[in-house]
């Protein structure tokens, strides 16, 4: 892919993201007239226009935070998926398949039971996610089997165990308060999101994304395998550790506010690879943008399609799973 084509692709994706965000802000139960929304934004910017006060509140305290959240979370989950796939040289893994999402969920649920706020939830989710990825990668090492399939199986074992652990936690949680919070959080909805929560995950998003974009070329080298990376002069353990920690931080931050949203982290990186190729220098920015666009659209559909809101994971699965099958079919010559 030529440099100019790539620049154009990025520009196009930014335009799409802007369009998706605007659509997301305009669509909702109160009014679907984009003019009303535009007026609300104008008035906030200090331009005197006729504006419905209710509309202003809806746009600024409900829709914009929600669209922002969907964009950030889509970007975080896709990016962490792309990075796990690169570092583990395995196009079959994702935050869900490695058990990281489940680990982060157990951590976050624990924090909720201890009565912690969003900061504590994030910290606990990070610890849970890191613990899950460490165990998931330790099992193939113990069995001395480094095949792609073994890592996937190991992730399923860890994920399965941790999901059951989460079920136990729900079972013992106090019904009136803790359980309700856990259940609502875990369903993966953006409906209660506020700006405070978005600010809380901001640092994790910023840190993880900046570091991973900075290290994107190193991920290429790690994806050749340990021997090649080492003979190219890389401190494999250090880089792999930093990169996995960043990816887990992103997953944990996403899980801590929106619960488990499946499929995004698996499908979007494949789509990005299909568009710009496997080179992580190009593929990682595209993954971030695609993930943001995808999630923004999914969330808009989730609240616009029916009068009752559809849980996100249902939509990401219904759309993501067939997409994944299609993508695998298209790129079968490029992965092994």
């Amino acid at each position, binding site marked *: 892919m030529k440099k100019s084509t790539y620049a154009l692709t990025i520009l196009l994706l930014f335009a799409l993201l802007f369009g998706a965000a605007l659509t997301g802000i305009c669509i909702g139960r109160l009014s679907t007239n984009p003019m009303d929304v535009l007026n609300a934004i104008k008035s906030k910017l200090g331009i005197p226009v006729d504006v419905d006060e209710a509309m202003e509140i809806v746009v600024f305290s409900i829709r914009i935070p929600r669209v922002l959240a969907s964009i950030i979370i889509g970007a975080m989950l896709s990016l962490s998926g792309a990075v796990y796939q690169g570092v583990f040289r395995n196009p079959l893994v994702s935050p869900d398949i490695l058990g990281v999402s489940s680990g982060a969920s157990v951590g976050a649920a624990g924090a909720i039971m201890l009565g912690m706020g969003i900061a504590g939830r994030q910290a606990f989710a990070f610890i849970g996610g890191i613990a899950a990825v460490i165990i998931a990668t330790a099992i193939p090492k113990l069995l001395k089997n480094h095949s*792609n399939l073994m890592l996937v199986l190991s992730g399923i074992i860890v994920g399965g165990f941790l999901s059951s652990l989460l079920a136990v936690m729900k079972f013992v949680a106090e019904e009136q308060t803790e359980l309700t919070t856990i259940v609502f959080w875990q369903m993966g909805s953006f409906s209660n999101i506020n700006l405070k929560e978005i600010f809380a995950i901001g640092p994790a998003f910023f840190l993880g994304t900046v570091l991973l974009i900075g290290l994107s070329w190193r991920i290429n080298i790690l*994806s050749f395998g340990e021997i090649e990376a080492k*003979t190219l*002069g890389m*401190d494999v353990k250090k880089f792999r550790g930093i990169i996995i920690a960043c990816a887990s931080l992103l997953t944990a931050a996403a899980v801590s506010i929106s619960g488990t949203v499946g499929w995004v982290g698996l499908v979007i990186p494949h789509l990005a690879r299909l568009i710009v*190729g496997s080179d992580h220098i190009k593929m990682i920015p595209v993954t971030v943008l695609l993930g943001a666009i995808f999630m923004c659209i999914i969330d808009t559909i989730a609240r616009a399609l029916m009068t009752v809101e559809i849980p996100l994971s249902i939509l990401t699965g219904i759309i993501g799973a067939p997409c994944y099958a299609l993508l695998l079919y298209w790129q079968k010559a490029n992965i*092994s």
Partner: protein
Amino acid sequence: MLAEIKNINFSYEEGHSILHDISFPIDKGQIITILGPNGVGKTTLLNCIANLITPTAGEIMLEGRALNKMSPKEIAMKIAFVPQLIVPSFSYEVLSYVVTGCAPRIGTFEKPKKFHYDIARSALEQMGITHISHKYYTHISGGERQLASIARALAQRPRIILMDEPTAHLDYGNQIKVLKVIKNIAEDGFSAVITTHNPDHALLLGGKVAALNQNGQFVFGKTEGVISKEFLSMLYDTDLHLYHISDINRDVCIVPTI
């Protein structure tokens, strides 16, 4: 002398030693062919020199410094490693693959620049495979992959290039092509240490032979001095003959019959 392997031992587990008291020098522009039957530790020896594993005893000196005291980056600037053919999980363009040879000289958060791509391009040119620069690594033939791997090693601008069975899995024509390339890069001043299962390759390459036999004995010396009918027959535990063919003016190793 560029590097020196000094009395190294290696064992994967206690009491079961693979390499025993191995010493030899690596000189500039020299080709060293490691010969020996399956399982004697040819690759293990190569991995020790690549610092992928650490000898259990003895040491390896590189330009007067102990290898195990150097950082991976410092070693990678002097020693390049061409592993056996691998099929990567992701497909990169050949040029993107070759440019990773510049990794030891590129900062942690940096990405390769035009300067580095130029190095990669000239390495591809040296291998005569410029035409596949923008093809995907998974879409090229085994021979082309091997040449691309050697191009990457050249882009690393090392002193020594280690190759683990560079002719394995290649058809006869490509095997000879790779041997020619090895000879050429040695003439350009790189030292090459390779492992092979074909003693004839050692004869074709000339240079020196490092042979490991079943009983853990190690022989090092000039190829023509070391390789003889008796030596090869003993090394591979097979009846092998060595003939001088005057038409081509070289010794050839052949099997009389099976």
